[in-house]
């Protein structure tokens, strides 16, 4: 029997499958179901500073009253909303701890440095075992340079690390010129893990109804290759843990991620599509591969994977198709 136990962010996981931050990890019932089907851990649905801001604005609009009579009450009401949000999060964490035995990773997405670390501290206080910083924002301002963006992100990471003791991971986007450098910078700042990669809300145009609509929500089974490439390339070059995320839809892909060196693998879309019961299939699929290749534990899987990826994964460093690398005749 294969042993799937692994360590991610210093946390003991009974297996490397994490249910990623999403609607699936927003309620206790859903989380308990995921764990019952075997999930090794959960990353809770992100807390968004933006949501609190929007909620505050809504309250302002509805409750301000004539002559702005409620202004003094509402002026800083966002702090109250924030407190309520954290109260709910704390209750959720308490419930997860009472009803399951998996570690709880919380996730945040904020605007400003100050909020990042204050949210982080509040989540640590609420009992989170680890923290995932959902860091990326679309760099929509055209006068902001890559250095400035990196400086901003580094500042956030540094401050968060200063304020919390629990392990911190950073969820990144693949869209950086110097992704390797960024990961190594974060590694040097003491980040405990890097999650590759974030998936974004994508606006799309609804031609029938002449309006902006949401683009495809779920990842597709072919989306995994970027994660696979970067995990394989970075595995030997950084000290922090690596978590694969995006496009992991089948047991095969999950196993591939482990071979590439992932310490944990996050799944979301495939659970939405196939239901929580599919977690069992994913895990048993991995076990089958391990048995077939006579690997008894995750460490052996990693070692086996290393052998497939010699010299820092030269194969993974190729960007363009060439006869030598691709079997396709062009």
């Amino acid at each position, binding site marked *: 029997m294969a042993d799937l136990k692994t360590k991610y962010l210093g946390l003991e996981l009974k297996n490397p499958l994490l249910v990623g931050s999403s609607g699936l990890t927003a309620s206790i019932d859903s989380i308990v179901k995921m764990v019952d089907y075997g999930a090794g851990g959960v990353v809770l649905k992100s807390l968004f500073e933006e949501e609190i801001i929007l909620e505050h604005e809504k309250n*302002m*609009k509805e409750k301000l009253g004539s002559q702005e009579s409620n202004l003094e009450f*509402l002026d800083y*009401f966002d702090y*109250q909303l924030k407190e309520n949000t954290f109260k709910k999060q704390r209750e959720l964490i308490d419930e997860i701890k009472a009803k399951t035995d998996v570690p709880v990773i919380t996730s945040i997405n904020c605007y*400003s440095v*100050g*909020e990042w*670390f204050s949210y982080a*501290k509040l989540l640590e206080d609420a009992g989170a075992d680890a923290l995932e910083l959902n860091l990326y924002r679309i760099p929509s301002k055209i006068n902001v340079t890559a250095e400035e963006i990196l400086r901003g992100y580094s500042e956030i990471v540094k401050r968060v690390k200063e304020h919390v003791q629990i392990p911190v991971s950073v969820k990144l986007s693949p869209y950086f010129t110097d992704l390797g450098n960024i990961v190594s910078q974060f590694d040097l700042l003491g980040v405990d893990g890097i999650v590759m990669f974030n998936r974004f809300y994508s606006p799309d145009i609804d031609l029938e109804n002449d309006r902006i609509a949401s683009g495809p929500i779920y990842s597709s089974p072919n989306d995994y290759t970027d994660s696979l490439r970067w995990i394989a390339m970075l595995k030997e070059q950084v000290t922090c843990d690596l978590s694969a995320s995006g496009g992991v839809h089948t047991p095969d892909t999950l196993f591939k991620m482990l071979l590439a060196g992932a310490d944990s693998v996050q799944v979301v879309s495939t659970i939405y599509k196939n239901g929580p019961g599919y977690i069992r299939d994913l895990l048993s699929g991995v076990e089958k591969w391990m048995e077939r290749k006579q690997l008894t534990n995750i460490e052996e899987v990693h070692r086996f994977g290393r052998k497939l990826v010699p010299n820092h994964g030269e194969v993974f460093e190729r960007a363009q198709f060439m006869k030598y690398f691709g079997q396709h005749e062009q």
Partner: protein
Amino acid sequence: MDKQDILKQERNAAWRKELRDKIKNKERTGFTRVEMPEADPIERSRSYVEVNSGLSAEEAVLEARRCLDCANPTCITGCPVEINIPKFIKNIERGEFLESAKVLKETSALPAVCGRVCPQEKQCEASCFYTQKLKKPAVAIGYLERFAADYERESGNVSVPDVAESKNKKIACIGSGPAGLSFAGDMAKMGYDVTVFEALHQIGGVLKYGIPEFRLPNDVVDVEIENLKKMGVKFETNFIVGKTATFDDLKEEGFEAFFVGSGAGLPRFMGIPGENLVGILSSNEYLTRVNLMEANKEETDTPILKGRRVAVIGGGNTAMDSVRTALRLGAEKAMIIYRRSEEEMPARVEEIKHAKEEGVEFMNLQNPIEYIGDAKGYVRQARVQRMELGEPDASGRRRPVPVEGSEYLLDVDTVVVSVGVSPNPLIPQSVPDLKTTDWSTLVVEEDSLQTSVPLMFAGGDIVRGGATVILAMGDGRKAAKAMDEKLSGVAKSEVAADNK
């Protein structure tokens, strides 16, 4: 006859016509608005003397002449309790000051208080013809209201409203703040036997523990309370309904109906790192120590932090009260840290002006994100982030957006957090049937202010969250009227509070 007709009829009184004919409107609008005489900023900022010293009779009459006694007095609609503004002002113009005070008391239980603490610039004065149509400074309605009320009080001729024959019905009023006092007054007028229960050792609620002496002297409040006592209202201090006695206990003792005006007594904090360091306190605590416990006085036992560098977080009236109190306690540097700009501040314009005159430093578009203490746990610095205003949001206010990389450390030794209060949970805790909203205010029927519990009404901040004194008073009146209707079992609303 509806309200409009009554107003019209009163406007047609001979004396009013005569006044109108005496001075042409053109001439009236040519007069400049009176300035409120104020204590010297340097001197007053170190003492507790009332800042506004009030208009003289002469000044009041001159200002009253500016009022055009409009056919359609829009100012009244700007007043939450619909004081008959032209009528009280014209009484001042003709020198009938006591009569003017009586007009105020027809609808307001605490005119001397409202004249001092209402945000008139957003209410009556915002709806004044001068503001609306002439784009000139409004008639100083607030100053005049205060003048008439003060004149009556100082004359020693305070009129006690008539009280109807006793109905022998015991009513409990929980809380002695503006909502409770106004409720108690109206119920007493209607002949009910009202007992007001107050948790603290002094009557007056926020008027006592919250608003400082330099803005609202306690004597002014006490006179109004004395008046209520003369009308037969009973007061029990040191009594927490739900704790000292339960609602059931009180029912057993014969109380038939309840009004909950227990206020919003739970201070809000920001939840940022370091906020529990020594030297960081709520404005409620800071102001209570000074206003209620008189900690500023040498001979009292209550201690107060006399900070040298005091930062007050917030932009409301409570923040202004706190920062000005800090000055009076001897602060070398008293600062307001507010994350929006002055334009968005909830505080009364006059309070902001006074604070500035007294030397308060306004650090607008800034927000603390963390506090840093020394080894003994005393706050020493605040990490402050600069903000800029973004696009106007749905409510029309511009949202403060942090400027990245703008943080800096500010030396402080006392921080007063004044970012609002939440409703006090004591009452809902002791009456489980009482429905509350998401923000823990009580759910009431809009017209009657009846809660989810029969014969239990509520008003003021426990319902609104945090509003003005005058709105709380308006609630008290509304609840009194509804309660009376309920208790008498007949719709006799016309007879009740209005036709006194």
